[in-house]
């Protein structure tokens, strides 16, 4: 318990250190918030089975990053990874943050809303927006011994990842300082350091996806897994399968078969869904095997 708390605190601490400083009203972004949603690929996750929380914010303005956005407290869950993506189109900007988490204890967990502080472009006043809250019903429990072992390995990995991230950030900062000395003085402030991202290999991501798909053989799970695998090959939301297959990361046969199988599970008719998800699970297994 103490190890788990320490691991979570370490990761949260790293995230907080890297987060941009909270500004006053003048430093807030001027935004027109169109939607602000907190969701999960399943609301009935299983103990020790990773799943994803998805925070989606759409604003009318075209901005390169979103500041002053706070995730809900995740102290009852264990953090495995965090991916952020900002997509700008003619309609505005979509910010999407996908947090990979795992529950270690059963029961009901209610996540408070995520918050965003910005100046409302409608009236020019500083405001705070709230996403929806999210209730998760965590079911099932693996054997305690296995859970403890996995937790210990996870905690060690988290420590290692956290230390590695800090070392990388410090090295980057040191290099930047050295390079700033030579050219003429630059007035612009250095941008905030990127948040540490826990690196997950494609095989690990596929294992997460397989766990999600096996835990919940539904259309929504298939769509979430499809989205995760698309991100893995560098694709973004809004692309089609043909776009994704043109990417260099998706050139090998096994990856292509996986992407095609997931596309089928996302769009086929209801009676074919079970078979399509079975095929997708098979494709994921082959991918994991090949990646290993």
């Amino acid at each position, binding site marked *: 318990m103490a190890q788990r708390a320490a691991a979570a605190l370490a990761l949260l601490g790293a995230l907080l250190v890297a987060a941009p400083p909270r500004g006053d009203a003048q430093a807030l972004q001027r935004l027109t918030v169109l939607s602000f949603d907190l969701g999960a690929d399943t609301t009935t996750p299983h103990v020790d089975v990773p799943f994803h929380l998805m925070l989606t914010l759409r604003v009318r303005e075209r901005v390169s990053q979103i500041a002053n956005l706070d995730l809900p407290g995740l102290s009852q869950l264990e953090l495995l990874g965090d991916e952020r993506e900002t997509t700008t189109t*003619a309609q505005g900007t979509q910010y999407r943050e996908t947090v990979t988490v795992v529950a270690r204890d059963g029961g009901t967990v209610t996540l408070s809303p995520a918050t965003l502080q910005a100046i409302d472009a409608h009236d020019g006043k500083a405001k705070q927006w709230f996403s929806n809250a999210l209730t998760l019903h965590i079911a099932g429990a693996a054997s305690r011994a296995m859970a403890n072992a996995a937790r210990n390995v996870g905690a060690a990995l988290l420590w290692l990842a956290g230390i590695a991230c800090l070392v990388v950030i410090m090295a980057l900062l040191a290099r930047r300082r050295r390079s700033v000395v030579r050219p003429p003085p630059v007035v612009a402030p250095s941008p905030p350091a990127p948040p540490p991202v826990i690196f997950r290999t494609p095989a690990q991501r596929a294992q997460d996806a397989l766990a999600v798909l096996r835990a919940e053989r539904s259309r929504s799970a298939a769509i979430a897994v499809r989205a995760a695998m698309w991100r893995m090959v560098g694709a973004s939301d*809004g692309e*089609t*399968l043909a776009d994704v297959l043109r990417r260099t990361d998706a050139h090998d046969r096994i990856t292509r078969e996986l992407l095609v199988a997931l596309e*089928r599970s*996302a*769009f086929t*008719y209801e009676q074919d869904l079970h078979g399509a998800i079975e095929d997708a699970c098979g494709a994921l297994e082959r991918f994991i095997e090949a990646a290993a």
Partner: protein
Amino acid sequence: MSGEREPAALRAALAETIVGQEGVIEALLLALLCNGHVLLEGPPGLAKTLACRSLAAALEGEFKRIQFTPDLLPSDIVGTRIFDQRESAFATVLGPIFANVVLADEINRAPAKVQSALLEAMQERQVTIGPQSYALPDPFVVMATMNPLDSEGTYALPIAQMDRFLMKVNVGYPTREEELRILDRFAVADTQPVRAVATLDEVRTWRAQAHSVHIDEKLKRYIVDLVARTREPSEFIDYGASPRATLALAFLARSRALLGGRDFALPDDVRAIAPHALRHRIGFNYRLAAEGIAADRIIDGLIAAVPAP
């Protein structure tokens, strides 16, 4: 797929005769499966007639070509009644529109009255000559062509008439490699005859199959979003596509899925056919031409702006 032969066999048979022009071949097959008609715009000599003739031959169907000219009359297309002196009665002579595959060559060379006669027949799938109505054959596909290079003495089709075409395909020149293959294939012998690979009955079966291809709710919303995007205020667009475009996109996506051997449609199906289903249904204003911007560039931008599900 329950049919013995699949529509992909038709595509393969056409590809044996026609070098390149996959867009034209696919448009013809999609029109056949959707029970619709195609408008082709491109310079002469790009195998449009050959494609039509080959399609009819591959189906063991009848092919007719009508060259549109300024002096053409509606009766030259649909048929007329002539007085038989021996029988002392009027006899009906059916026009060239009574065929399975009809090529309406240079449709914009004929005046509006003749264009209307053709487009009405395309829509109603029957023609009335004198007191009697005659049903057109089934399948019945019209492929109309327009030449963009020589617009003198032409009668532009109004948007309302263009909307009756399921799709409009821009036919481009072949690539260098394709042109070399054309040279090899047609330099010595004349056009290779197309072998029959399907029957008209099979086409009717495929059409029924295309209707039962699944379109997911996400895909339906994507189609509606695409069409709605064309109606949003724009610097270059006066008016957007009609709900007929929405229906056309759904029909075409289903048929393309069937052509690809699937019984469910994908976002790729919608995106691939969207330019062909939208380009003749959007009213572009004078600024587009004044600034020398290709309409397809605007359409590509509209499609890219709508995220696929």
